[in-house]
């Protein structure tokens, strides 16, 4: 016996001054294995072709489709409707510029964050591509990859109380990036350099350890560990 699902979906076109934010109801019969990707696609195809939302890989790897699912940030593409009650509310991710309905501009936020934190590997010299690559301990490479797995989906920012109150907070995504480059022996920066970009209240000292990021990260990144580690290293900078 299939359930009938009631969707309450946020609708708003910020470019239309006359358009008032509202929620719109849609009803859909659940099918086996239905994900929110399948459900939203069906709603758009069968009921409302104007509904905006973002899916790209639809496989949980690209980070496009994060939204508030019954109030909590998550990746819509890999959320099975069977895991939800029959009343499902969908809202755009808070903390990001709204494009329309469920679509938000996470890309713009992430690029700005990367530029501000200088979140790229600072290497000593351009590689000599003909020669053997520099060696790296296998375990260390795996540890770097563990932190490199972030998909910039924005769930940690949407799940962060600090980020919701302070628009300039870098969020766990930013701190994790710094932790990743800090761990990487190929990056020539020192802690003093990292302190310049995260050593204040919009950086690691703004974090109040509410753990929303850690508990909601779709990739289950060890964010608590990394932020604690980063906080200690950055605090050490303040001791002299």
């Amino acid at each position, binding site marked *: 016996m299939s359930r009938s699902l009631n969707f309450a979906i946020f609708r708003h076109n910020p470019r239309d001054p006359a358009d008032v934010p509202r929620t719109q109801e849609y009803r859909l019969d659940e099918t086996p294995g239905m994900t929110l990707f399948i459900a939203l696609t069906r709603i758009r195809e069968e009921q409302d072709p104007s509904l905006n939302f973002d899916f790209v890989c639809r496989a949980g790897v690209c980070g496009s489709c994060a939204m508030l699912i019954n109030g909590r940030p998550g990746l819509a593409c890999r959320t099975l409707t069977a895991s939800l009650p029959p009343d499902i509310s969908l809202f755009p991710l808070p903390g990001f510029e709204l494009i329309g309905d469920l679509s938000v501009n996470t890309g713009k936020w992430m690029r700005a964050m990367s530029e501000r934190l200088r979140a790229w590997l600072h290497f000593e010299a351009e590689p000599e591509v003909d020669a053997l690559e520099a060696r790296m301990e296998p375990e260390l490479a795996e540890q770097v990859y563990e932190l490199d797995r972030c998909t910039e989906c924005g769930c940690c920012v949407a799940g962060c109380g600090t980020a919701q109150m302070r628009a300039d907070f870098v969020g766990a995504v930013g701190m994790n990036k710094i932790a990743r480059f800090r761990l990487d022996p190929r990056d020539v920066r020192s802690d003093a350099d990292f302190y310049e970009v995260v050593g204040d209240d919009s950086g690691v000292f703004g974090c109040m*350890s509410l753990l929303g990021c*850690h508990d909601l990260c779709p990739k289950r990144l*060890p964010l608590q560990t990394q932020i*604690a580690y980063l906080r200690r290293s950055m605090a050490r900078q303040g001791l002299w």
Partner: protein
Amino acid sequence: MFAEVDVVNLSALTPAAVPPRPSLWPARMDILQSATGLFLGLFMWLHMFFVASILLGHDAFWTVARFFEGYFFFGRSLPWLVSLFVAAIAAMLIVHAWLALRKFPAQWKQHAAFWRHMGRLRHGDTTLWLVQVLTGFAMFFLAPVHLYLMLAHPELIGPYESADRVWSGRMWPLYLILLFLVELHAGVGLYRLAVKWVAFGDPRRSLRILGRLKWAFTVFFLVLGLLSLAAYVKLGIEHADRVGEPYIPAWIKTAP
């Protein structure tokens, strides 16, 4: 072909000035907030044990109280030692509160954003933070009452003296409220400190255990606190007709 449109990069022409070192105060303030919190939190737990010594008998509490007045070191009571200590705690409390205030939502917009966020997220650690804010805020008003009393009358700590203050001095409602405020705030605060500073190897497991520990401690100290308060109330009622009479243990001939 559009390359020459690029204007000269000015920053490349300025002498290689050393960029000003960023302020170290954010780091120091963060350490200070945590350090004062850690001290106050641990002190409150110890304080609870001191207070609860009443459950072991009048003499036990009397001994603890005199201990802090240096009775066992100097052979006589020096209540101003207690005043000094109280003043230090009060100072620490002020610093801690001042530092913590930075994190409070300052504008209505931030307030609303946090409430909305907390409401929809239904996430334990996020909700607990509001508990921190509210208990901290309330303590900022209530704790000074107790602190001032201790500062002004350090000698009035003893089984009868304290019981009289609780009952006949009508302090018990304040202490009842403070008990909950302090234990919640300290329990959550110490838990938060661990989460903030300890890089757990297996965070998911560690946080689960830590979460349980936090509640266990909070419940333990609440129960201990309630029992102690009940003991003082009982003693206060019994001693109500002799208010002002200090307690002197039977094995001491003269008052210290």
